[in-house]
């Protein structure tokens, strides 16, 4: 819309997406949502406080509201839409639904992204580790109890199924 427009490409959910109309310095959150239509990424504070906008950039879980989109060029970006093939649920997603970890659901995409990241790094997190690792994701509805329960259930299921595979 103005002369400061930038053209660059982002690797998002395994696909190269061209961003043609972004302005210099536009946040990754705004580019993902408003330019590329990835509406599963949510914004609720735009100050890095709530975690609703969490996405994976390379190996890091980041608040997309705090990152300039242009700075993510060349890094693989994974949003909630790219966690699983379309129409399917990951184990974390399925357990969130079953375990009552979702009420309004606004925090959910960011949280589920964060939980995948957590369980990839720490297979069987303690209660303290879950709380500390997820402390950047605010949920106003659930009081967190069912979410912690869901994370533990996934960890146990993964451990059980890898035991079974041995």
């Amino acid at each position, binding site marked *: 819309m103005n002369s400061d427009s930038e053209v660059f490409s982002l690797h998002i959910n395994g696909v190269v997406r061209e961003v043609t109309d972004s302005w210099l310095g536009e946040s990754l959150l705004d580019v993902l949502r408003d330019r590329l239509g990835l509406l599963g990424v949510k914004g*609720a504070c735009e100050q890095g*406080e709530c975690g609703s906008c969490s996405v994976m950039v390379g190996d890091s879980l980041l608040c997309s509201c705090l990152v300039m989109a242009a700075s993510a060029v060349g890094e693989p970006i994974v949003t909630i*839409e790219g966690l699983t093939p379309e129409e399917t*649920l990951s184990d974390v997603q399925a357990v969130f639904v079953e375990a*009552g970890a979702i009420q309004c*659901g606004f925090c959910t995409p960011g949280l589920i992204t964060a939980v995948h990241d957590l369980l990839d790094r720490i297979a069987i997190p303690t*209660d303290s580790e879950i709380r500390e690792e997820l402390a950047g994701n605010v949920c106003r*509805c659930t009081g967190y*109890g069912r979410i912690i329960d869901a994370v533990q259930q996934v960890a146990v299921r993964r451990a059980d199924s890898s035991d079974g595979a041995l």
Partner: protein
Amino acid sequence: MTVIDHDAGPRTSARHGTVGTSPPRPDGDAKAQGSFAFSSDLSADGCLWGATLRSPYPSARIVSIDLSVAFKIAGVESVITADDVPGEAYYGLISRDQPVFASDVVRYVGEPIAAVAADHPETCRRALAAIVVEYEELEPLLDPEQAIDGSHHDIHPDGNVIRHQRIACGDIERTGSVVVEGTYEIGMQDQAFLGLEAALAIPDPDGKGVELHVATQWLHEDRGQLAACLALPEESVRLVLGGVGGAFGAREDISLQVHTCLLALRLGRPVRFAYSRTESFLGHVHRHPATIWMRHHADADGQIVKIESRMVFDGGAYASTSAAVLINAVTHAQGPYRCANAVVDGYAVRTNSVPCGAMRGFGVVQACFAHESQMDKLADACGLNAVEIRLRNAMRTGDRLITGQPVLNVAPVERCIRDTAALPLPTEPIGGNLTANGGVDPMKLPGGAGRTADRGDIVRGIGWGVAIKNLMYSEGFDDYATARCQLADGVATLKFATAEVGQGFVTIAAQIARTILGIDDVRLDQIDTQIGSAGSTSASRQTWMSGGAVDLACRTVREAMFVDVGRAHDIDPLRLVIDGTDIVDESSGWRMSVAEANAGLAYDETVEYRHPPTVELDESGQGDCHTAFAFVAHRAVVDIDPELGLVKVVQVATAQDVGRALNPLSVIGQIEGGIAQGLGLAVMEEIIQVDGAIRNGNFTDYLLPTFLDMPEVIATLIEEPDPRAPLGAKGVGEPPCVSSTPAIVAAIRDALRSVDGVGKPLARVPVRPADICL
């Protein structure tokens, strides 16, 4: 980990998905995948963005507004002010006292003055900056007492006192041998839902109507206010519920609805608005800050003989629901305790602060912090402990409130207290068990990762809070809910206008239909205004009200089906019942699946459910003004660092009177979520205003409980089905955040007392570090 002690009582093994089980939410998969459309995700072809210009002053006269520069900015399509409102210039929930746009004066920082529509949010921002408003600043009214004593001129034609209500009950001269008193303050809390205000308005091609997709708590109330402002007949204003990212009271009032529709109708193009977090703090009402003085008289063994109270609620610039919030506060002054004599004086006043209105707990939160703080003082004065003083005074079914109203509901106050007391205390010592390598986990100490706490300095305390909370609307309001049930070819379809805000009504509506109809395939129609009102998703009322309407609609369909099936198979329809997914003649043993029996038949019933009427309070505050009541007890355990004033809430135990848990997992979710908000008010959350301006309207400065702040919750559900409730189930949303706050504060007081034997009064919430350590 959280323990759910689910006292289900006798229960036959229910079919999955029916009442009493915990099936997953119908919208759960979409929410987990990120494909659920919240109102902020909605757009339309050719859609413009809207934005709002707001007042920087708490009180000022508008001398002039110059829009000419804004209009010239490329991409700006329209700029509107009060002059462009075709209909009613004011809106409001109880009284229409709030202007769509301020025209002559502004009454709070953040009041809307103009709105723009443009091709991009950035263009909107520039257009707002280009609007030139000349103000003449006026002396703001910021002290609620000045609103009462008349020392400040009226800041609104309706006056500075929104409502004054007195309650005089029994012998108001009575005194007791034990007297305790205190003055308590409650700070302004924000609902802080995550899904910010957003809406999309699509005008009809002929310009004579509009469709608004909006996250709200009450579609039909919005429609009524909107249609009046737009000067359109109600049927030309169609509302569709946009996905709601939490509500907690903040979406009961109009925020961006009128502005969005005005611009869309004016331009003949779709317009969307989306507030930022900072704008959201200005754009919705908050929990009333309040000052409550209370004096309890008791006899020597701790029986309450009289309470006296004066309550002042700061309603901010516009009335919103302040009058009803006040009534909840004054009528709940006694708490869940017997009390024959009382004098209560309550004021809801107007000031030049940001408007206050509904938030989860609705006036009862403030009253409860005062009466529970008083109960602990009374216990001390009588030499009793916190549990004993409450048990001695616990209300029972049939007892009267200070309004003269008998409590006709199941009232298991004593059981709430005893069952809570029976829940285990934390087993881990202060700071938790030592880690595998013999160290202390800092996350288990006050101050957490800051590692400021020395384990040896930390002290633990235990505190109690018990509450009564009214359910549904009060004071003669015609409170009803509408639901439609269609049954054809073994598929049931439900329609209602009940706002699903996250609480899970969509889940239990389908559960009710499965139970009543013996059908597993239940579909939910769009939530919109193409059916009668469901009333608001507030006052813990939808399980009872919309649940009651769905139940009644399904029963009506079922009875019609029984008549047809009876005729076809020559069975008296009165002998037919639903057993699982079959229709059964219990006397002959004949049975047939509902789906089979329903083949080729179709039913369609729309019903309204109403609760028994209530009345307005009279001048002495007497009258059966409330519909029903629920009860709850909380016991909190905290660890504090007395030198740094840091608090770690270690555990909250609760027993809640739920009537019947239609979906136990959802009930637990409401309990845990409500306690989190109660904890927030106890130790973290407050909107700070300086000279009428919010200073912390963002999530960096307004502190919300995170995973690390929330303790373990242990809950017992007390299921004594209420014969007055359509499904035996009471609303469960509000009680968890009513008495959790005073329980946590009492626990901090208890811990502090163990340090020096004296402690601190902590008469104000949220409790700040300085209140503890200085």
